[in-house]
């Protein structure tokens, strides 16, 4: 009972409900009895704690109510992002328009495809076959005429010799020096080079390097008009992986353009003289120049791996310099060969580049007895 009385007095004291006399007596008691004093402090703290707790609980409750209230009034939207809301609104708004548009589009598409089918001429296999034959006929005539013309006009093709190999070459000096592969001209008794207009010139081997598979040819023909300068340059350092490259060559009677990219810095089995490029090449492309996008010669197309597609090896262009140096050393009869070092093709459109380059790329025909 004492405890309860004390508690009651303490509570009333804390709430300020005691009369002046009682208060003085209680404060006296607090000063004399430290236990009572401690209990008062403790109780005051406890009351504070419990009222804080009460407030906190009320407040939490209030927050919940406000949240629900705001949800009801629609001032908050839970469960829906504003963006998705917009999309849904748009859809609701334009559903009809969209469906009409879709229908019209569908009908139009059907109508047009109907028209196309109706008016497309029925393809006839028979006609195509006939056309083929006609073309062949024309081709045949042309060939016969060509042969006849050749017989009349062809003093350059050596008599009693057979054309064995064909390849490509390109000018390294406008005076008539060409670079090609050694394997193109090896064992040749006569060499003819032909430009893209079909003119043929006699040429001879100035230097042949079988190790590097490079040969330098010299045009010895009065019909040949020397060029003052070449459009492309020849690069001394090697190209980077991934560089875009293109080639020009004569796998057939026409000059043929191809493009690809640098795929490895070494050639077959780690050969450091050459590098690997990915480009489609055929027999006849041998000796053809490989250009980068600025029109610098970066290599001479030489071989292809038989069992792999698109794996082509090119001799690095710096070897051309070595070959020319060798030539100067061994034979002083040759006037100074000047290798072009600046390209005129940089920044040009590819078509324009080719127009300039193609006059400097020659077909090589080797004849043997």
């Amino acid at each position, binding site marked *: 009972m004492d*405890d*309860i009385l004390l*508690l*009651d007095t303490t509570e009333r004291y804390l709430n300020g409900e005691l009369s002046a006399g009682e208060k003085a007596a209680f404060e006296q008691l607090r000063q004399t009895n430290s236990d009572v004093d401690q209990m008062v402090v*403790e*109780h005051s*703290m*406890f*009351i504070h*704690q*419990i*009222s*804080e*707790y*009460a*407030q*906190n*609980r*009320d*407040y*939490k409750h*209030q*927050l*919940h109510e*406000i*949240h629900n*209230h*705001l949800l009801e009034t629609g*001032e*908050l939207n*839970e*469960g829906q*992002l*504003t963006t998705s809301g917009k999309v849904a609104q748009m859809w609701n708004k334009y559903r009809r328009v969209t469906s009409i548009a879709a229908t019209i589009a569908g009908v139009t598409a059907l109508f047009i495809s109907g028209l196309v089918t109706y008016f497309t001429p029925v393809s006839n296999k028979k006609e195509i076959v006939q056309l083929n034959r006609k073309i062949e006929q024309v081709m045949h005539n042309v060939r016969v005429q060509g042969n006849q013309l050749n017989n009349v006009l062809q003093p350059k093709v050596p008599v009693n010799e057979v054309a064995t190999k064909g390849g490509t070459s390109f000018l390294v000096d406008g005076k008539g020096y060409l670079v090609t592969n050694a394997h193109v001209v090896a064992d040749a008794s006569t060499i003819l080079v032909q430009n893209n207009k079909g003119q043929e010139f006699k040429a001879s081997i100035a230097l042949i390097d079988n190790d590097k598979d490079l040969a330098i040819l010299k045009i010895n023909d009065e019909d040949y008009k020397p060029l003052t300068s070449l459009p492309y340059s020849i690069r001394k350092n090697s190209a980077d992986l991934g560089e875009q490259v293109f080639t020009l060559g004569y796998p057939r009677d026409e000059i043929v353009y191809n493009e690809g990219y640098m795929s490895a810095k070494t050639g077959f089995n780690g050969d450091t003289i050459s590098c690997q490029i990915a480009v489609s090449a055929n027999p006849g492309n041998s000796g053809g120049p490989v250009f980068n996008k600025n029109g610098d010669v970066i290599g001479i197309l030489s071989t292809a791996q038989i069992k792999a597609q698109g794996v082509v090896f090119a001799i690095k262009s710096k070897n051309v310099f070595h070959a020319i140096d060798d030539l100067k050393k061994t034979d002083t009869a040759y006037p100074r060969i000047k290798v072009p070092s600046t390209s005129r093709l940089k920044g040009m459109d590819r078509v324009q580049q080719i127009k300039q380059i193609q006059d400097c790329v020659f077909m090589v025909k080797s004849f043997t007895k």
Partner: protein
Amino acid sequence: MKAEFSEQVLLKGLAKNDAKAIETIYKNNFNMVQSFVLNNNGSYDDARDIFQEAMIVLYENVKSEKFVLTCQIKTYLYSICRRLWLKRLQYANRFTTQVESLEETVPIEEDLEHQEKRNLDFAIMERALGSLGEPCKSLLEAYYLQKKDMTDIASIFGYTNADNAKNQKYKCLIRLKKLFFSQYNIGE
């Protein structure tokens, strides 16, 4: 100036537990926090929890005289929510990338620490009340939490008079205090 003034009014209202003020603050800031939480791997429920926790921190702070808000309410709430959400993400091990920040933040670490302490106290009080058992719990809640008059309590709980109820209340209070102080350390 005007915005600042109205913010002060809102804070004063909040301290007095004014429903209108709370609602205004709630309405003005909830969407921002919701989009923050949703954009950072959270759900709507997470957003609500986090925001209400932040509102409690603000409320508890505003009640104390010492507290002066040096930034906008919005910035303060955002900072708290951001911190709380980061903590929760770390706790759930879902924290993979840097949480993207949309708004400026202010340092609120100290406030949050205080709040954690308070939350701990509240938890002790709640546990103590919970293990008290009926009718003591309801009796004490009616008096101390709902601030009901002793005579009302007597009639509600079926005591013959207020004094009886009072006696019973004190008995309960002594038990509650024991339970509470067994877990609560005054020294801290």
